């Protein structure tokens, strides 16, 4: 079978086709040249489990650019948004496309931590100016920190840690149970919460884990009902969070057991607007709150534009825009020297919708105000995340941890 090479005419057509395809996709790259508009690439999830979050993030960024007349530091901005499907492989492909074919000046976005970790080496190797809007695995500010990757967002530790402080101080020293989504983020949130809470002297009871994408929380809620805890620390996101909160109420646990969680559990746009009253009384620690003073104008504008109060992702898209604007303006639109951009961004804090945002020079991680939100009835009976406490300038332990 080996003495004849298996290339028939059909094969030739196929390979010629491949060649034609290549030159077609290569053509735009060749056309690239002069320094014209400022190209910003954004990779976010427009399909897959984070679709709604991705659409919010994109909307936030677009709102910001529209407010600035589509210009930053005098340069017209061209925003190219790509979909990563919340899949790391796809995310990497899209980052490479933005950098290798669209020749963008800045890449930004990313919701999933896995995508953020996956693209880390790609952008580092390309020395690309990168702004991670939401991916929040602790490692991104620690082992996987990178010189040109800026993180205008929280790490999971910041939220788990502050929740541990708050719970010990205000909710009780014992009678704590945890329940979380059994994947990387859930493990980090719950682990950091438990570490801090225990460090303070608190005692943690039973810890439950639910697989990602759990449809029926009934069995776990019955277990909780039997355990009768004082309060629960929990981390779920997206549809898992919606189902968890609704089923909590179905099983009459909502009023009885105090619930505190990571910001995503009570995300204003993604979760609270879906579960409505079932969220009332819930607590969460988050770097974003629609009622934070720094967010007042943005919340109003977002509500006017999208008919819903902003959650973390919509805000993150906007804040990413704000940080990019600060960086670009501080170097008068000249991004050629990346060291200079970095210096300028680290030099002083950026005023953002999240709150004042200085960057940690060790890992380019934002140092953030973390809000403790309680879901209360707002105007018109709509449940809203109300700030009841602010932990000022929370800083991730960083590379040493």
């Amino acid at each position, binding site marked *: 079978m080996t003495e004849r090479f298996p290339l028939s005419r059909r094969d030739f057509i196929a390979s010629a086709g491949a060649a034609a395809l290549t030159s077609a996709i290569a053509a735009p790259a060749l056309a690239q040249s002069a320094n014209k508009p400022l190209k910003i690439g954004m990779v976010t999830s427009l399909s897959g489990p984070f679709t*709604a979050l991705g659409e919010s993030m994109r909307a936030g960024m677009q709102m910001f650019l529209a407010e600035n007349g589509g210009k930053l530091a005098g340069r017209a901005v061209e925003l190219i948004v790509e979909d990563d499907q919340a899949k790391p492989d796809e995310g990497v492909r899209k980052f490479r496309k933005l950098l290798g074919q669209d020749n963008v000046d800045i890449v930004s976005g990313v919701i999933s931590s896995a995508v953020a970790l996956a693209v880390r080496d790609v952008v580092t190797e390309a020395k690309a100016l990168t702004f991670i809007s939401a991916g929040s695995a602790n490692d991104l500010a620690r082992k996987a920190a990178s010189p040109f990757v800026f993180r205008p967002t929280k790490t999971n530790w910041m939220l788990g840690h502050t929740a541990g402080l708050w719970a010990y101080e205000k909710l009780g020293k014992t009678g704590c149970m945890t329940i979380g989504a059994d994947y990387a983020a859930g493990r980090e949130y719950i682990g950091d919460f438990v570490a801090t809470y225990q460090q303070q002297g608190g005692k943690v009871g039973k810890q439950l884990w*639910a697989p990602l994408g759990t*449809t029926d929380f*009934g069995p776990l809620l019955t277990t909780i009902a039997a355990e009768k805890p004082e309060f629960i620390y929990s981390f779920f996101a*997206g*549809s898992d969070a919606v189902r968890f909160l609704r*089923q909590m109420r*179905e099983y009459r646990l909502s009023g009885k057991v105090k619930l505190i969680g990571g910001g995503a559990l009570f995300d204003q746009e993604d979760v609270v607007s*879906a579960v409505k009253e079932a969220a009332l009384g819930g607590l969460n620690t988050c770097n974003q709150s629609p009622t934070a003073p720094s967010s007042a104008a943005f919340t109003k504008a977002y509500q006017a534009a999208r008919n819903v109060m902003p959650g973390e992702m919509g805000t993150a898209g906007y804040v990413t825009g704000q940080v990019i604007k600060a960086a670009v303006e501080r170097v008068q639109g000249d991004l050629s020297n990346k060291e200079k951009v970095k210096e300028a961004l680290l030099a002083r804090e950026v005023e953002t919708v999240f709150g004042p945002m200085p960057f940690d020079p060790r890992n380019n991680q934002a140092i953030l105000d973390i809000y403790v939100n309680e879901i209360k009835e707002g105007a018109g009976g709509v449940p809203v995340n109300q700030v009841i406490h602010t932990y000022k300038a929370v800083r991730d332990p960083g590379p040493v941890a």
Partner: protein
Amino acid sequence: MGFYAVQSLNALSFSMLLLLTGLGLSVVLNLMNFVNLTHGSFFLLGAYVGVYWLASGAPWWLAFPVAFVAAGLAGFLLERFPFRQFYARTHLMQVLLTYGLSVIFADLMRWGFGAQILSPEIPEALRGVVFIMDMPFPIYRLFIIGFGAALAFALWFVIDRTIWGAVVRACVTDRGFVETLGLDTRRIFTAVLVISAGLGGISGALGAGILSAYPGLDEEVLILALIVVVAGGLGTFRGTVLSALLLGFAMTFSKVWVPEFSNVVALAIMAALLVALPEGLVAKKVRQV
């Protein structure tokens, strides 16, 4: 005691949910020998219809017939084109066609209903809980158990105990024979598919109360339903019921005892079942050769 009683009810209600989703799939597979992977889309469509209906303020109980009609209509149109051309094709081609269609519908529904997670307003009458030896159990889940059992019984009765069921089953084995009786087999097939799609819709409207509605739910539900129907054994109604109960109880009690490994345990049980019984729980008795 109360704990295990409620956990058993949990398992039963989840089994019913699985059964409801599996039933529609099972009906087309059993009666028409057609694999319909768009069933998850019917489910999601029903879920969205239910959510919007319950929010509209119209009488709540109408949500279920409306979801049935909406999904049934979708099924009717699909039956006309392109399902009809694929009845005689291999299962593989049917799988490919309907999976492709489900990808299209997933995107169309995301377009139409948005990507947000939507949860229905459960009607006041179904919101309460009952306490079983001090343990709460939601009335809505009792409603699902009752509704599911009634629907399953009705279906079993029609298919196994009435002339209609016999005619439909005869259609699959010998179309020509049924046609000589003066019956239009094409209409019969259309009717079966509409009922199957409607069942998908109605279970979606019911299930949304627990699962909510969002892009991607169609696929999650489809996978569970497929496992239930295939592991039950093709061509049997009893098998689908048994396997829904098995999977429901396996998933629930693995969550009770080993929540971290619940998916693996439940999947392993289904895998072991198929290894031991390669033709499913209840295999059609066919003589070889």
